[in-house]
Structures are given as structure tokens and as C-alpha cells.
């Protein structure tokens, strides 16, 4: 041990020992890598399409001169690395290109469509959590230790059923019952507040059922934990045992597993939007794929991907706040 | 002749140094008992010996030569007999798998060999067709021993082989281990956290603390005349032993292997170290060496003890 380094050691040590700082740096690093992978994947997506994407987009009948001109305009004749550099540069300046179909700037298309999708996703997320957490927790407390087998069976079978039915089928069913048969809600579109109800419900039902199952299973396993026995040995009233000791721990486990489910909800908007003709990104991407409008497709994939990464980041940060151990856990 | 020796062996996992410059010899036909608390690196050393972990430095030698890659002269018996046998294989298959190809050619010969091995560990050969779940913990540990013997090893590493067993079973497994070792003249590295168990089977006892061997010598010397203060702490900690406690270090915490202290690694807990004798600065700064002390005790003041220790510990 030389003395000059010994003097510096404590500061370095403290720096390295600050778990929050280390967690933040590690998480930031992972986010950056993920974003880079996403950007690169979106870039490669266009270049992996077999054949000439311009030819594919313009149709077989398009004159070769037009194709050549468009290729030149899109920079497709440059070497791949140069295209990649231009792509990244354009992204950072906010230039997402121009739609090959409508001629509108892609950034504008995204700007128009994104709010509708975000509303839908947030509404669905809120509703799913609002249903799932109390329901799962309540079912766990009621059915712990093999109590009330009938209720358990009813809950598990109906939640399996609901979780298995995909969003777009729920949506079709809801449209049939509430719009067609009962006439209570509009069939499609985004206008009055009541036009939000069916899409949000359709989006939330499946994740809510799946999440409720997870909450129940996790709560049951937490109720088996040694520290719950400790809480009982302290003779705390039941409400404190559940609220202080069971719930926070069940939630940490739930969020870990449920996080994937919630980012799945971001993708679920695609199908729901198509059923309800919701003017969001979901209907845009499908139309663009069918029309081979690649600049738009690329941008929407990027937006969805970033959405998923943000959800994952939020999940990890929430976990770190709820469970201090997760900041030191390597991932 | 089969002598296992560790020369300056170091094992690192990232920033953690689990085993730090260990020198240790298991002479031919003897049992070396290795004791230490959890995190001292004793299991890591065992895994490094059999090649499950690659050491970051130093050499592991058998009769002065590097371990051969083809044959397997070192075999290991693991702590938990519930996880060391494949639940989807009959115990006979598990043992047969470990028989070297050259040792028994043909189905019948292999079956005969399995029978011989099971009998060697006092198991009826008809148990060969059973799955591990159908056996008790003690029986599984016997199967694990039979599997280790199948490779005709020269050295056996036994890593906490009785600590997962019920107390009434422990005795029979220890008897078997001792019996086999004497009959087959095996060299053995016997690892345990339980000093009484180590004492019962070992000829030589080595004490490990935070990745270092701090004392090593003939069992009686180490137990009756311990040179390193940590060895004495271990002996005093055995239930039923009444030893005066140095108040300054009575409730100190075990060291964290991720942040080993500078100087002598034992100094924050040492009853003859700087916490009790403030003038002993050397412990804070200089690493003690084993050379020149009785039992190779890695303590600056080991010599100090030798002079005064003519009364034996009541062991």
C-alpha cells in the first residue's frame, strides 16, 4: 500500500459504495445500450428487407428512372456505414424523413398520432392496476393456506380465461354487446369521453386478469415467508401484517414479473386501435406496413420501442424505491 | 505415492479474492482437515483443486506434477446429497457413469464394478436400481462416496459432507469415511466448519481465515497448542468450552470478504491485536507471514505465544 493512493482510497471507496449512484450508472448504461440496439435494429430492418424496398414500395410498374431517383434521394446508393451515420445524424436532429405515400414529414405524423395512443395506454394501465392489485391481494388473503377452495377455483379459472382472450377479441365482443346490441357506446373513433370506455376496457381486461393472478400468487408466497411469521410473533394486528409486511414485498415481486406484461400493453394498443379505428400509432403502423411506407414504419417502431424501454426503466426505478436490495442486485 | 499440494493458489471472482496465496500440502495417505467460517474460501479451494474453478494464480500439483487432464486422480464429495445426485438417474447409473472407460469393459463388468463399489460403502447392491428420492440422506451420501471412488482416485476432497445430514446419521458417514480412507490408503482433504468433526477424522489440521491459511500442523499440536489467535477463538467458541472473553473484541463482527482489512486480516477481531494492545501497530500495516512460526501460524506475535504457552488449553 503506497501512501498517496491510500489518501485517495476513501473517496473512491465511498463513490463505489454509494449503491444508488452505482445503480443509476448501471441502469443508465443498460438504457443506452438498449436504445442503441433499438436504433440499429430499426435501421437494419429496412436494409434486411429482401429485394429493393423502393421498388417494393413504388410497385413493379414504376419506371426505373423514378426508382433510381428515389433511391438517390433516400441515400440508398451510399455505402451502408455512411447511411448509418446519416440515419443517426438525422435522428438526433429530429428529422425522421418523409412518408413515401402522403409526402408528409414523418415527425408530423408521429406528433399527430402519438397522443391518442398514449392516452389509451395510460388509461389501460391505470385500469389494469386498479383492478388487479386489490383483487389479487384480496383473493390471496381469502384463499391462503388452502381456504375457500371454491372461490380459488372460480378465480383461477376465470382469470386464466380472461387472460387468454386477446385484446382484439375482447374488443370485438365489447363492440358487439355494448355498441351493436345495447347501443350504449360508439362503435369506433375517438371523440366524446364515452368513446374511450370500450377501447380502454378492451385493453385492460387481459393484463388485469393476468396481473391479478400474479399478485395473488406472489402474495401467497410472501404470506409463507419467515418475516410474516415474525410479524405475527410480534402480535401485530392483521391489517398491519398485510399492509406493512405482505403488500410491499408482494408488490416488488409483482412488478418484476408484471413489468413485461405492462410493456405488452403498449403493444396491445396496436390491435385495439385497429378494432376501434382509433387514430393512433397502432392503426398507422399497420397501414404503413401494408402500404410499404417504410420511413413511417421505421419511426413508429422506434417510438414503440422507446415506449417499452421507458416502461422498463420506470419498473426498475419503482422496484429500487420499494425494495432497497434490488439496487445492489446485479442484473 | 500421491501427495496433493497447493502452491500459492489464488482464486478471484471479480473484485473478490476468495482464496489468497494458499500453500497447503496433503501428504500421501493422510487426512488434512480444513476448518474456517463461512466465506473463508475453503469450499472455493476445494473446487479449485478438482478443476471446477480455474485458479487465478499459483499451481496445484499431484506428486510434484501438474494435474493430468485425461485421468481424474482427484474426486470430490459434495455437501448436499440432495443436489449432488441426478434425480432422473438411478443411483447405479450415476455410479456407473463415473467408472473410467478402461476400468471395466462391457455391460456385465460395469455392473459388477457398481456392485463392488456399493458394497464398499455398505450399501446392498440391489439399491442400484433405485432413484435418489427413494434413499435417505445418509444413503445418498454413501452413493456419492461410491461415485467418487469409481474413478479410482488418489485423493478425495470431502466438502462439508456431513453438515446436511441429521445428527443420528452423521456418525455412520464419518465412520465410513475413516474406514475407507484407512483401507484404501487415500489422501484426503476434509473440509468442515465443525472442529469436532474435523478433529475426529484428521491427521493434520489447517485453519483458514479470509482466504488465507493462518495455521496448519499435526492435529494434536493445533488443537492442544494453537499458535494463531483465530484458532484459539475457534476452539473457545465450541459449545461447552469456558474461556475468558476479551471485552474489547467480544462482540466484533466477522470480516467481510469483499473488504478485507489491511495488514493482518484478523486484527479487527484479534484478542492479542491492536484493539487490546494499542502499541501493536504492525498488525494494522504489515501482513504476517507463516514462515518461522510454529504450525506456520500467520501472526506477528505467534512467537510471543510460544514462549508463554506452556500451559495447554483444556481441550
Amino acid at each position: 500500500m503506497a501512501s498517496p493512493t491510500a489518501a485517495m482510497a476513501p473517496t473512491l471507496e465511498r463513490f463505489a459504495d454509494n449503491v444508488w449512484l452505482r445503480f443509476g450508472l448501471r441502469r443508465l448504461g443498460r438504457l443506452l445500450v438498449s436504445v442503441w440496439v433499438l436504433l440499429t435494429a430499426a435501421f437494419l430492418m429496412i436494409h434486411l428487407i429482401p429485394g429493393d424496398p423502393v421498388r417494393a414500395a413504388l410497385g413493379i410498374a414504376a419506371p426505373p428512372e423514378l426508382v433510381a431517383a428515389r433511391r438517390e434521394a433516400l441515400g440508398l446508393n451510399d455505402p451502408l456505414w455512411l447511411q448509418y451515420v446519416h440515419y443517426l445524424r438525422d435522428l438526433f436532429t429530429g428529422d425522421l424523413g418523409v412518408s413515401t405515400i402522403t409526402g408528409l414529414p414523418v415527425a408530423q405524423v408521429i406528433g399527430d398520432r402519438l397522443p391518442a395512443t398514449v392516452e389509451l395506454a395510460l388509461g389501460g394501465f391505470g385500469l389494469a392496476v386498479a383492478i388487479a392489485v386489490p383483487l389479487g391481494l384480496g383473493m390471496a388473503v381469502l384463499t391462503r393456506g388452502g381456504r375457500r377452495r371454491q372461490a380459488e377455483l372460480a378465480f383461477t379459472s376465470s382469470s386464466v380465461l380472461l387472460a387468454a382472450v386477446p385484446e382484439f377479441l375482447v374488443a370485438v365482443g365489447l363492440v358487439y354487446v355494448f355498441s351493436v346490441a345495447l347501443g350504449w357506446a360508439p362503435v369506433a373513433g375517438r371523440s366524446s369521453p364515452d368513446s374511450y370506455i370500450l377501447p380502454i376496457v378492451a385493453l385492460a381486461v387481459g393484463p388485469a386478469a393476468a396481473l391479478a393472478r400474479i399478485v395473488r400468487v406472489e402474495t401467497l408466497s410472501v404470506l409463507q415467508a419467515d418475516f410474516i411469521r415474525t410479524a405475527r410473533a410480534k402480535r401485530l394486528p392483521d391489517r398491519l401484517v398485510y399492509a406493512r409486511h405482505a403488500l410491499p414485498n408482494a408488490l416488488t415481486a409483482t412488478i418484476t414479473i408484471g413489468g413485461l406484461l405492462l410493456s405488452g400493453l403498449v403493444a396491445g394498443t396496436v390491435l385495439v386501435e385497429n378494432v376501434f379505428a382509433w387514430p393512433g400509432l397502432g392503426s398507422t403502423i399497420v397501414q404503413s406496413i401494408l402500404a410499404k411506407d417504410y420511413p413511417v414504419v421505421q419511426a413508429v417502431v422506434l417510438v414503440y420501442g422507446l415506449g417499452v424501454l421507458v416502461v422498463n426503466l420506470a419498473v426498475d426505478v419503482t422496484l429500487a424505491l420499494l425494495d432497497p436490495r434490488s439496487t445492489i442486485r446485479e442484473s | 505415492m500421491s501427495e496433493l499440494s497447493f502452491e500459492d493458489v489464488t482464486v478471484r471472482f471479480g473484485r473478490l479474492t476468495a482464496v489468497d496465496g494458499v500453500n497447503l500440502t496433503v501428504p500421501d495417505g493422510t487426512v488434512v482437515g480444513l476448518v474456517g467460517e463461512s466465506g473463508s474460501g475453503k469450499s472455493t479451494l476445494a473446487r479449485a483443486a478438482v478443476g471446477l474453478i480455474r485458479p487465478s494464480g499459483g499451481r496445484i500439483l499431484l506428486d510434484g506434477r501438474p494435474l493430468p487432464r485425461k485421468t481424474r486422480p482427484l474426486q470430490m464429495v459434495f455437501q448436499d446429497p440432495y443436489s449432488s445426485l441426478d434425480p432422473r438417474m438411478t443411483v447405479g447409473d450415476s455410479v456407473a457413469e463415473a467408472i473410467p472407460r478402461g476400468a471395466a469393459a462391457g455391460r456385465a463388468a460395469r455392473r459388477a464394478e457398481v456392485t463392488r463399489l456399493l458394497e464398499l460403502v455398505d450399501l446392498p447392491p440391489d439399491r442400484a436400481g433405485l432413484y435418489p428420492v427413494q434413499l435417505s440422506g445418509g444413503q445418498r451420501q454413501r452413493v456419492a462416496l461410491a461415485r467418487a471412488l469409481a474413478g479410482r482416485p488418489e485423493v478425495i476432497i470431502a466438502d462439508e459432507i456431513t453438515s446436511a445430514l441429521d445428527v443420528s446419521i452423521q456418525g455412520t458417514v464419518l465412520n465410513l469415511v475413516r474406514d475407507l480412507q484407512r483401507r484404501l490408503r487415500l489422501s484426503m482433504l476434509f473440509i468442515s466448519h465443525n472442529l469436532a468433526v474435523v478433529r475426529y477424522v484428521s491427521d493434520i489440521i489447517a485453519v483458514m481465515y479470509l482466504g488465507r491459511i493462518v495455521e496448519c500442523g499435526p492435529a494434536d499440536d493445533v488443537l492442544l497448542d494453537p499458535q494463531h489467535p483465530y484458532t484459539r477463538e475457534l476452539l473457545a467458541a465450541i459449545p461447552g468450552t469456558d474461556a475468558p472473553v476479551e471485552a474489547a473484541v467480544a462482540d466484533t463482527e466477522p470480516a467481510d470478504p469483499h473488504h478485507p482489512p489491511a495488514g493482518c486480516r484478523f486484527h479487527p477481531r484479534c484478542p492479542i491485536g491492536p484493539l487490546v494492545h494499542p502499541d501493536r501497530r504492525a498488525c494494522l500495516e504489515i501482513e504476517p507471514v507463516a514462515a518461522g512460526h510454529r504450525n506456520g501460524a500467520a501472526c506477528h506475535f505467534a512467537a510471543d505465544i510460544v514462549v508463554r504457552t506452556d500451559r495447554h488449553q483444556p481441550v
Partner: protein
Amino acid sequence: MRSRWGSVLRTPVGVSAAALLAAVLLLAVLAPLVWSAEADAIDTGSILRGSSAEHSMGTDNLGRDIFARVMVATRLSVVLALVATSIGVLAGLVLGTAPLVLGARAGRIVTAAVNIAVAFPGLLLALFFAVIFGVGATGALLAIGFAIAPGFARLTQTLVARVAGLDFVAAARLAGVGRARLIVRHILPNIGEPLMVNATIAAGNTLLAFAGLSFLGLGVQPPAYDWGRLLGDGLGGIYIHPAAALAPGVAVVVAGLAFNLFGEAMAKGIGRQTAAVPVRRWRRPAATPVQRVPGPDAVLAVEGLRVSFPGPVTPVRGVGFTVRRGEAVGIVGESGSGKTLTALAIARLIEEPGEVSADRLQFLGKDLRIGSGPALRRLLGTSLAMVFQDPTTSFNPTRRMGRQLAEVAEVHQGLGRRPALARAVDRLRAVRIPAAERRARQFPHEFSGGMRQRAMIGMGLMGTPALIVADEPTTALDVTVQKQVLRLLERIRADDSVAILLISHDIAVVREVCDRVLVMYAGRIVEELPAADMHRLARHPYTRALLAAVPDMTTDRDRPLAAIPGRPADPTRLPVGCAFAPRCPLADEQCVREDPPLVADVLGHRVACWHADLVVGEPR
């Protein structure tokens, strides 16, 4: 292994799921043969009709029969789902076992890539691949296959990592087993079942996902059709003609559920090998006469304590003893002897479906068998302290240490947050935790094992305990730390004359701390004797064998240790007579026939053995 799959089919859910799945598969094979002609018959005369005698579900925009089309679409839908699943599972298996095959470094890159991919939802990946592979059935097949691959790879990795970390894999490597054989013989068989379960569920999900892609127009292209395509075509006319959209929707859900439910049933059948047994109430035998009246200084008096579980199993079968003020009593026994359940029953911590009954269960003169009001809760919360075996799992990981102690004072002593925390810090100091104030603000994982166990004891000292029940308090600790914890318990006992009930498998630990020892075997106390002189006084063959089988620092190294043949008694299969008889060298016919009673001699030592008188002198 066969019987496990059989057990899947024996549950009602399993049977119905299997039947449903069989029906779907059968339909996939037969439907095109039966309904093809009808499904393709264009009838411009009856376009978009509702249901009629001729067309039970009505017709589509070319007058084709919708029911027939839904039936015929079964084959394509199911085949596409199965092929896509196979692609995904295969790709997932390859990626998942790559770390094992390629070695650590290349494996880490694959793992990292999978970890990033798995964060993206399947549908998004499917859309991504659909762009690359183009619109159509083949494109969608590859897109969905690759989309489920990362999830499967992650699952495989987790399972492989878990199995590969087990010692039997290490043992096989030491035995010279090669990498390929290691994977085929040892790893795949041990991860096969969960993989199959997940593949089945994945097939269901793939079916639904494929329907989704086709519905969006990205999957199957006309003139071919699957359920998703039919659904998408039908949706436009849902106002006038709902059956065209609902019929394929129902088909998708039923088929998807068939796969999912079968997978769930498989998972259940594998996970729970023993089916639930109907709960039978434990019938109490005729009450045994209460032999002794506890003295006035008894902190705890137990008589005829039984704990039973549905099965029925009775792991504690009539335990009785007393603990006096300031006394330390030990319970020694092997796993399955019922010693821990005895402790939990005394502390009223046995939860349903466990049942506790006793002829007497008194703590500080209060009958614990009746009542559960706040008064009793306060009494137990402040006067009975518990210390559990594993200090790592016995604290709530998400609450600060100080608060976990403080809540005892808040609930039972009505202290406010601040004074309660101050008391917690004071108690942490009392159990010799350095820098108690700072430590109180830390979380349990920042404490070492020994410190946690001391904090646990400190938690018991928040009130004014009359009894500390410590269940294997030092088993998880190193010997030097064990010594510290035992010293702490002794000091507390001496300072405040707190009684201690110490439960351990380690006779040496019990002997060091306790005045009296209770030896338990198979749910009964077989001997009660003073701790100090166990070697001389032990009369039960089990106690004596236990003393002789465990080496200590004075054991003669040249003689073999005493062996106890056989294995510990199984509480689900207890013999009629003495439970130790099958392992006992003294057992005779009486022992097999009759369970010996626990009889006290003049000195108060109790022993339950027909042949206790035969045993004299030193056990070795």
C-alpha cells in the same frame, strides 16, 4: 415419471383440457375433408345473409357458408400456430443452451442479446419481423416464431443455469462426462417438463397472435383464410351481421384456451405431485389425566400438546412440560421430531390448516387455548419473545431495521413514532449492536447474520419478556458468532430472570445454555433430564445413542462413533408402538406393540422407554 402425466389426466381441469385439445386437433385434421366444398361454394344469390336453416351462421359477402369456413380454417390456424411455435421453441432452445455449448464468453453475448430482446413484447417483435419478411403467411410464420424465441431462450437459460449450478452436474464433470452427454443425459431431462409445459402454453398464445396478425391483414392473404382473416373480414359488417365476426372469434378463443388450459393443468400436475387430501378433523383421544399442577413460578405450563395437519398427520403427539421463571430449558431432536412445531404451537403461531389442541397451555397463568382478544395479544406481544432460525429471511427486507423493532412499542405500548424509535435504538444498543442509531436506519440486508440475530433478540426485548422461545437460533451462524449469540441470551436471562426455551438439533449448544433438556423423537418427549450430567444420567436408548454418535472434542479418535441404524421416523407413517423401536438395539415385542408412557422417577427425570432400567452407566 409416467404416473405424473397420469395424474394430470386425473384432475377435472386436466381431463376437460385434454378432451378440448383432442377435439381441436381432430377438427384440424377432419374439417377440410368434410366442409371444404361447402366453404368454397360461392352463392351470389344469398350474400351476407343471417342465420338460416341452410346456413347456421349465415353467409359472407360472396354467399359462402360461414360455419363451414370457420371449421375449415381450423387446420390452417392450428398448423400455422404449431409451426410458428416449433420455430420459436427451437430457436429459443438453441439460444438458451448457447452459453453452455459455446462457453462463458460467447455465452455472455448471447445472453445479453436475449435479455434486450425479451424486454420487447412479442407483438412488437412480430411487427418488426413482419416488415422484414413481408406481408403473408410465411412472413408471419417466421415473424411470430422469432418473436417468441427470446422468451423461450430466457426460460431455457434460467432453467439450464439452475440445473447446471447443482452439484450433480459438477460431479458428472468430475467423473469425466463430456459436454454433449452432460446436456443430453443430465440437463435436458431435468428441464424437459417445464419446457414442455411452456411450449404448450406458447402454442396457445401463438394461435392467438397469429389470429391477431391475420386480423390486421399482415398474416394469411386471400384466397387462403384462417380464423384471424375471417374475423377481420367479418368485423366491417358487425352491425348488420355479427355472426361473421363472432363465430371465428369464438373458435380462436376455444382453441387457444385448449392449449393454455392443458399447459396449466400439466404445470399443476407436475408441480404438485400429491393431490390435496380431504381435510379430516383430528379426533382427540380420551383426555390423559393431567399429572402435575404447575407451581406458582411457572412461566409456561404445557400438557398434552398436539399439532395435527390434514392428512391426517400429527407431528406433535402429546407434549407436556413446564418452564419456570428464569429457567433455561432445551428441546433437542432431529428434523421431523416436532420440536419446531412445538415451539410454534406454544407461541400460537400455527396457521390453518394446522390444528393445535392441548390439555393445558398456560403462559403466565393465562390460558392460551381460549380467547384471542387485544389483551391476550398485548400479553404475548410484550412478554413472549421469539427468535427464529434464519435471521436472513426473518426480517421484512423492505422496512428499516429500527422501524421493525419500533412497531412493537407502537402497537402494544402506545408509544408515538419518535419515542418508539428511540426505544428501538436503545434495545439495539442493549444487544450490543455498534452504532445503533445509524444501524436503526439501515435495512436488514445491510446487517451481518450475527447482527441480524441479535437484532431479532433485541426485538423481543422491546417489551419485558418473561420467556424467549429460540428456535435453532444459531444454526445458520458461524461458531464464533454462535458463541456471541448464546452469550447474549445467557446475559439477558441472568439480568432479568427471563426464561428461555432453546430448540436445537445440537446437543452441545443446548447443554451449554440450558438447565434441563427435553429430548424429542417422532413428536413425543422421550426423555427429560438435567443438562449438566447428560452423559451419566441419560436412560433412553435414543438419548444415549445421540450423545455417542456426535463427536465432540473429547471423543476417542481410535474408536468408531456409535451408529444409529435406520432413518429418522417419518411422521406420516408412525408405528403403533414405540416410534424408536425400529432403530433400537433393546427393542422387543412389547416395544413394537405398545408405546411406552413418559414416567417420572423420584428425582423428576422423565423417560419413555420400557427398558429404561436396563440402561446404566456411561453410554460409551
